[in-house]
């Protein structure tokens, strides 16, 4: 037996491979950093042009969007986006958390597995499908409300909110469920031992303990809602006016694709500017998320 295997054999080639692989991993890691940096610079440069042209306040706080007349006020769109997102999160959060509690704690195993599969499916449906169903079923369903309110039938902020609720529910449910599941069983058992009922234990002990995870789910859902374009564009009516629940609204995301094709010059720069505003929104939401996660981590210690 001359063929002895040793962990020392081929040490040099091994360490060479290690080093090369290290470099490859570094390059891969840098790729994402570089693309984010590139996008940030690109958005700031191309989106900043319109702001330099019209001034921050006239761009962000202007009421009138009339590119033909060189008026680029995007306040109506900012407010519409914020309201649609806020409305969607306010509805989706309680519903999502209750579903998550049901899945994590209350449902029999098989039902929960089946439900989870459906929720995952919901998350994977392309947004254009949501938009299509929204335009065909949801928007006409709101016609009656609009008629009762003395408004013409059209797409509306309400339709956008309902669509967004359905779209962000899977995110909120799955993140909240994971958070609820990760709360140590002993907490709940201790509460039960002290004489609380099952529901008391869940809602007074487990859910508060999972708070940071649930907030993370909410922030993720907010990010998804504010960034959604296709589905809301198909149900919101896209009128660039101050938002009202039953009137058509144009969200920031929809504003870009709807006018992109025929835009040029200052108009196109203004669309880049809208992109920059959205970019900032998403950045803020991301920072918020990191903050929440950090706090949550500290709490667990």
């Amino acid at each position, binding site marked *: 037996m001359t063929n002895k295997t040793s962990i020392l054999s081929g040490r040099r080639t091994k360490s060479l491979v290690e080093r090369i692989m290290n470099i490859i991993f570094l390059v891969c890691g840098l790729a994402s950093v570089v693309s984010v940096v590139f996008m940030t610079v690109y958005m700031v440069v191309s989106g900043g042009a319109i702001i330099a042209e019209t001034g921050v306040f006239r761009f962000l706080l202007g009421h009138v969007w*009339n590119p*033909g007349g060189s008026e680029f006020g995007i306040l109506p769109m900012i407010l519409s986006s914020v309201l649609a997102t806020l409305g969607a999160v306010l509805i989706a959060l309680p519903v999502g958390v209750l579903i998550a509690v049901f899945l994590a704690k209350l449902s029999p195993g098989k039902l929960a597995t089946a439900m989870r599969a459906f929720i995952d499916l919901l998350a994977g449906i392309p947004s254009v499908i949501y938009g299509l169903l929204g335009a065909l079923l949801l928007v006409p369903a709101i016609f009656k409300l609009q008629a009762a309110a003395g408004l*013409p039938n059209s797409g509306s902020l309400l339709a956008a909110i309902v669509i967004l609720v359905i779209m962000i529910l899977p995110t909120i449910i799955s993140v909240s469920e994971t958070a609820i599941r990760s709360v140590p069983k002993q907490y709940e058992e201790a509460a039960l031992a002290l004489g609380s009922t099952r529901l008391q234990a869940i809602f007074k002990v487990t859910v508060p303990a999972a708070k940071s995870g649930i907030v993370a789910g909410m922030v993720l859902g907010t990010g998804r809602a504010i960034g959604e374009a296709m589905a809301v564009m198909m149900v919101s009516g896209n*009128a660039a006016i101050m938002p009202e629940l039953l009137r058509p609204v144009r969200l920031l995301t929809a504003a870009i694709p709807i006018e992109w094709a*025929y*835009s040029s010059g200052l108009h196109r720069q203004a669309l880049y500017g809208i992109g920059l505003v959205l970019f900032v929104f998403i950045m803020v939401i991301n920072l918020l998320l990191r903050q929440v996660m950090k706090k949550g981590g500290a709490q667990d210690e």
Partner: protein
Amino acid sequence: MKKTFSLILAAVLVAISVAGCGTKSGNTTPTPSSAPTDASTPTPTAANLSGGVKTGGSTSVEKVMTALIYQFQADNREVTVDYEMNGSGDGIKNTISGLYELGHSSRELKSDGSEDGLTATAYAIDGIAVVVHKDNSIATLTAAQLRGIYTGEITNWKEVGGSDALITVVTREEGSGTRSAFSELIGFKEAEILTSATVQDSTGAVQTTVSQNPNAIGYISFSDADTSKVNTVPYEGVAVSEAALKDGSYKLKREFYLLTKTGSTLSPAAQAFFDFVLSAEGQKIVSEKGLLPIR
């Protein structure tokens, strides 16, 4: 054993992807499988033509232009005509800058000097149809009524002879050629369009929106109007039809243009395409697509 297998697998995958690329690039070169009637006996000019013609502009002309390009390339196998769809504005701009040899526009050139140096040659007339829901049988609308509806002075169908219901105004997005043509023909500024009007970014989206909303009104290209989905409204008492467009009695119409740089000579391939569009064969395709030929 495992290693050999993965090697073979990798080789197969590479082979497949290479083959895939091959067929893909084969598809992009325009070689229609069905030979046109006159391809067997090519005319002398057709045999000599080769190269690419860069064109681009209006999206409104898409249907007719893709049909024209398809037939032209079938007749001239060595010529490739590109068509970038990015709107009349870009078509005009990029023809001035020389990026496109031929530009497409669905509106007239502006006379304020910003679009000088181009020659616009009309090759087709497109009617704009005013459309309403299938259940809406409004008899006719005048230019003044349409102006009132689109500027928000008229808000109820009963004011124009319809039932008592609020009007949902549907319009195209800022920059659309159909939108500027419509507002110009009716006689109001684009900035005057009711700000709460529903905005859709394509002919199809306008038609779908109107087909679902009993109180909606919209405007689209006549060639795209599908009367199984929506009703077309007579304009100034004249129903839109090919006959009415041809005899000029229906006034809500615009022209499609090929743009060339004034005074410059086109490449032989571009000139041949230009001539083809205005030829009897090209004009036949124009009328097959629901437009009114210019010749």
